[in-house]
């Protein structure tokens, strides 16, 4: 589904991703772990199409097409979804109006008929239950006045509505207490299907107790330095990143 090949990218002339390669197949959950500054959020931003990142090398293929040539909205319509680390508050833009417009754009791109207001609201009711999200929040402006936990749940709720093929969760666990974390993880798990894939980007292993990854990759200094199964996350929890940082530094010298 997703083929990242030797990807290099940076911001303001500073290279952050330095030849990153990763392959994600349908039905899989991959976790990207790494210390602060290793390039995790850059990877999420590059995949979603953030303009501030310049891709300097490599390629990203998504379902057979080149992802990097697409505008952010074209990526969304093709089935890429980014759950933001810091969802932005957008005063004056009603959550429901926005999400209905977004869903119908995605449906149009998939060749499906647009949903009318009644169909959309019944979908919303069903999905808010899944995320234990107060439906009253959706009559408010996008993320405005939402608590940290509500914002993150709202991200996963939007994901549930849009049904992406590839979901990228950027530090979705940050700022969540354990109960909210369980709700969010539960939501993600319920949305797992054989035909979609999830990329979980996280600093801590904690989230991976609830979203069990098939693969864990360690990102250090813009490269994946180690990959393994879910047990790698536990090892990182126990030993920290230092042993890998040292190895990476030694590697760089040679």
């Amino acid at each position, binding site marked *: 589904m997703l083929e990242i090949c030797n990807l290099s990218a940076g911001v303001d002339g500073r290279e952050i991703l330095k030849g990153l390669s990763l392959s994600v197949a349908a039905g899989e959950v991959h976790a990207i772990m790494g210390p602060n500054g290793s390039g995790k959020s850059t990877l999420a931003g590059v995949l*979603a*199409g*953030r*303009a501030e990142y310049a891709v300097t090398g490599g390629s990203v293929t998504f379902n057979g097409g080149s992802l990097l040539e697409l*505008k*952010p*909205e074209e*990526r*969304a*319509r093709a089935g890429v*979804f*980014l759950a*933001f680390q810091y*969802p*932005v508050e*957008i*005063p*004056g*833009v009603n959550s429901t109006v*926005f*999400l209905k*417009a*977004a*869903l119908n*754009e*995605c449906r149009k*791109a998939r060749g499906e008929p647009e949903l009318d207001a009644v169909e959309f609201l019944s979908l919303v009711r069903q999905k808010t239950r899944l995320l234990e999200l107060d439906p009253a929040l959706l009559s408010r*402006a*996008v993320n405005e006045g939402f608590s940290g936990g509500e914002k993150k749940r709202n991200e996963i709720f*939007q994901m549930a509505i*849009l049904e992406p093929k590839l979901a990228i969760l950027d530090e979705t666990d940050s700022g969540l207490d354990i109960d909210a974390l369980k709700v969010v993880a539960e939501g993600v798990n319920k949305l797992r299907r054989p035909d979609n894939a999830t990329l979980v980007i996280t600093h801590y292993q904690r989230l991976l107790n609830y979203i069990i990854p098939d693969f864990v990759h360690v990102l250090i200094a813009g490269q994946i330095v180690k990959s393994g199964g879910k047990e790698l996350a536990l090892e990182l929890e126990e030993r920290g990143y230092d042993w890998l940082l040292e190895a990476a530094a030694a590697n760089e010298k040679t």
Partner: protein
Amino acid sequence: MMDTRKQMEDEPAAAPDAFFPGELGPGPAWLQSVRQRARGRLGQIGFPTVRDEEWRFTNMAPLLQWPLHAAQSDGRPIGPAEVKPFRLAGQGHCLVFVDGFFRPDLSVLPGRGAALQAGSLRAQLEANPRELEQHLGCHAGFDTHYFTALNTAFFQDGAFISVPADAIIEKPVQLLYLAASGRPGAAVHARNLILVHGGGSLKVIETYASLTEAAHLTNAVTEVSLGPGARLEHCRLQNENERAFHVAAVQAVQGRGSHWLSHSIATGARLARNQIQTLLNAEGAEAILNGLFLARDGQLMDHHTVVDHAQPHCESHEFYHGILAGRSHGVFNGKIFVRPNAQKTNAKQTNRNLVLSENAVMDTKPQLEIFADDVKCTHGATVGQLNGEALFYLRSRGLDAAQARRLLIRAFADGVVERVTLAPVREHLEQLLTARFQGLER
């Protein structure tokens, strides 16, 4: 290359009589003396130039090159079909003025014996001038305002509305000013007087629009007097053609515990100068000044507001939003005066501007002069672009860039539109703004 601004400044201001020849407008002896005083002021004030602090950004000089003349009917018949698209008040009353002339045949007037009085100011001056004497020309100061003085000296007609004590008028009254002349340079000095007596309540919509593309000047003055506990929602909609010059002065004088909700929505004219002012003249008076302008290529939109807290325990809330596209220019100047005895004043002013183009310029200046010590006054002014992170967020969910921009521009305008309680006006603004936003999203 010659500095054109310099050249303009050095030009002598034209004498008012040359600028505007003609007899003083009609009215009884007391009004004639007011008119004479006003005409006398013209020479002393002088035609405003960009050297005057109050007109620094708003250059009226092009008017002096116009073939200005008092608007007259050019013979083209204007009937109900031309008026209908501008009618907003639904079942309410409507006073129609074509090129400044009252058209009772196109108007919907209150019946005889109705509590509400609404009709031609000129007719009222002929029939029953007594009630007018203590209001007309007394509220809108012309000592330093050239265009208000011009209006006071020369106005021919306008609307007179009076709500008796404790009368609640549910249906809005619309004042519809249509510029119909095809001959460039027609000038109309429209004069409105709105009286809401103690405990009365009224909603007024002032609409200014053009039926042709010819350049014209509207110089409108509206005086508002609110008695104790009176309430007025006053909505000014200016959508004249983009060759027009529009100068407006609104002056309210508020009694004890009165409430004035003022909206100024400007989308039209090449140059629009709006002076919106209120005098909070007795305890417990409250004013909400709500404003929105949308300027596109070639337009200048200027709002000067004055909230004068003359008495204690009054409140004012001011929200002005500007949206600038293309090569446009916005000006906001918000004065708040708190007089020495106006303790416990609560005054708040917000001016937010959204600049959509590199070629647009916004000049904003809050001006607070506070002479009392136990007061709460805040102000804030911002000039910014669309939030890039919000744009990316919307696009990352599947909206294209134009849709995302439109949503954000719309949200910015809606903050002001939502304060309008009149549903027909809100619906009209929805359509107007939606149409106007087409093309701004890029």
